[in-house]
């Protein structure tokens, strides 16, 4: 039995619908009503979710858009706080950012590697030490000293994945970002993820691409209507998921 590195206990998350009170002017003119509507109209993103992830395990999260998958990643990353229940996470969380997020278009690839690496929680010296590995893995070659605004979306994806993948992640969060690279690079990412599995890196993988999910995940959590519909071994869940369609 492995150590649990992520534990969700009866976690619920709801957001007030803030757009109803945007603007200080509106807020002041409708003060009592504004406060009341803030309290009452809440959007429930997750309802009473409980699950655990063991160290070294790869958990896939599948489900429709808006089902609450990204909220789960936000809770693991620590950028969101649960409304109810407790979230326990042990270890450094490395989120793989969406295309181009955290990169500045006017800086070169090399400069962006440092910026992004420090942003996701590493020290400058740690990033500089891995600089050459990151550049080599990305295969961006001479473009690395060009501003990233001239990069194609595939190159941005390569850069983003290379940064996270070469900085010794402990818990890696991947939110549907691998679809952009070309076939060769996708294969390379997949190989690296399988290597992570062997090394005992914990991964949480949100995706709509079932072939990928099938290849790398040990277990799958199927989120439907803001709660867990099913959780279990990859094979079983995929069969049921396609069966339900």
């Amino acid at each position, binding site marked *: 039995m492995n150590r649990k590195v992520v534990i969700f206990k009866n976690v619920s998350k709801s*957001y007030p619908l*803030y757009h109803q*009170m*945007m*603007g*200080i*002017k509106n*807020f002041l003119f409708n003060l009592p009503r504004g406060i009341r509507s803030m309290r009452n109209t809440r959007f429930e993103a997750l309802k009473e979710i409980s699950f655990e992830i063991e160290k070294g395990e790869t958990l896939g999260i599948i489900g429709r858009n808006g089902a609450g998958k990204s909220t789960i990643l*936000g809770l693991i*990353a*620590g*950028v*969101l*706080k649960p409304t109810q229940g407790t979230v326990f996470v042990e270890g450094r*969380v490395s*989120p793989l*950012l*969406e295309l181009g*997020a*955290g990169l*500045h278009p*006017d*800086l070169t690839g090399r*400069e962006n590697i*440092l*910026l992004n690496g*420090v*942003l*996701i*929680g*590493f*020290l*400058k010296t740690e990033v500089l030490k891995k600089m050459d590995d990151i550049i080599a893995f990305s295969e961006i070659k001479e473009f690395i000293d060009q501003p990233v605004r001239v990069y194609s979306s595939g190159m941005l994806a390569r850069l983003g994945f290379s940064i996270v993948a070469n900085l010794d992640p402990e818990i890696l969060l991947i*939110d549907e970002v691998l679809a952009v690279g070309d076939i060769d690079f996708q294969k390379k990412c997949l190989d690296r993820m399988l290597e992570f599995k062997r090394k005992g890196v914990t991964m949480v993988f949100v995706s709509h691409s079932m072939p990928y999910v099938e290849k790398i995940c040990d277990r799958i959590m199927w989120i439907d209507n803001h709660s867990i519909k099913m959780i279990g071994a990859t094979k079983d869940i995929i069969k049921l998921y396609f069966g339900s369609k």
Partner: protein
Amino acid sequence: MKMTKNTEKKLQHFIDLIIVFTQKDLKVRYKNSFLGYLWSIAHPLAFALVFFIAFKVVVKIQVENYTLFLISGLFPWQWFANSVNGAPMMFLNNASIIKKVNFPRNVLVFTHVLQDMIHFLLAIPVVVLFLIIYGKTPSISWCYGITILLFIQFFITYGLSLIVASTNLFFRDLERLTILFTTLLFYFTPIIYSEHMIPNHYKPLIYLNPLASLMISWRNLFMGGILNVTEICLAFIYAIIIFFLGHIVYKSLSWRFAEIL
């Protein structure tokens, strides 16, 4: 023991974040052009010209070396106003990373204010140039005087920017209000006029303005190398209060940033 090592690493990471973010801002601003620097000087100089025409030429204000007088107040003010006016967009413009990465968000505001401070420092040679034109020279007291006032202004500006940046996520129309606020505050601060010109009756009121004693101190320092202890102490007290206020507002709101963006 493990605890201290952890906080040490956290502090080091905070410093690294500030370094890379500031490098980024400066590189982007000064990339392949000198224009970025010129801009941070041209703006206050243009205002100095306008005020000179309006108040010296037209109104015939009784202030000696009025151009120098204006410049020594307008440059530090420019730093303050730029930072605070830019604050509403500070978190908003970084929504994509705030939603995904759990990094200390106040770094964004910190580096923003730091960057404007660096521009102000780079503009000080212009003040020296005008001193020389008026037949004066910088004083030795600048060495420590500038350092002290930099710290005070940094904490006032940072605290206020933190309040504006955080609350703007909840009330998105704060941007206009902020510009209105800084513009009005400018005219209530003795920059285009001297504090000695205020009628005795109203004089104490000027110190309700947290920026007043700071801007007076800058001008005294630049023009005569004078550091008035009372003015500086008052500015320092305001700096501490505003810094803590900013920190409290930020702390109580920051956990909701990711869900509101």
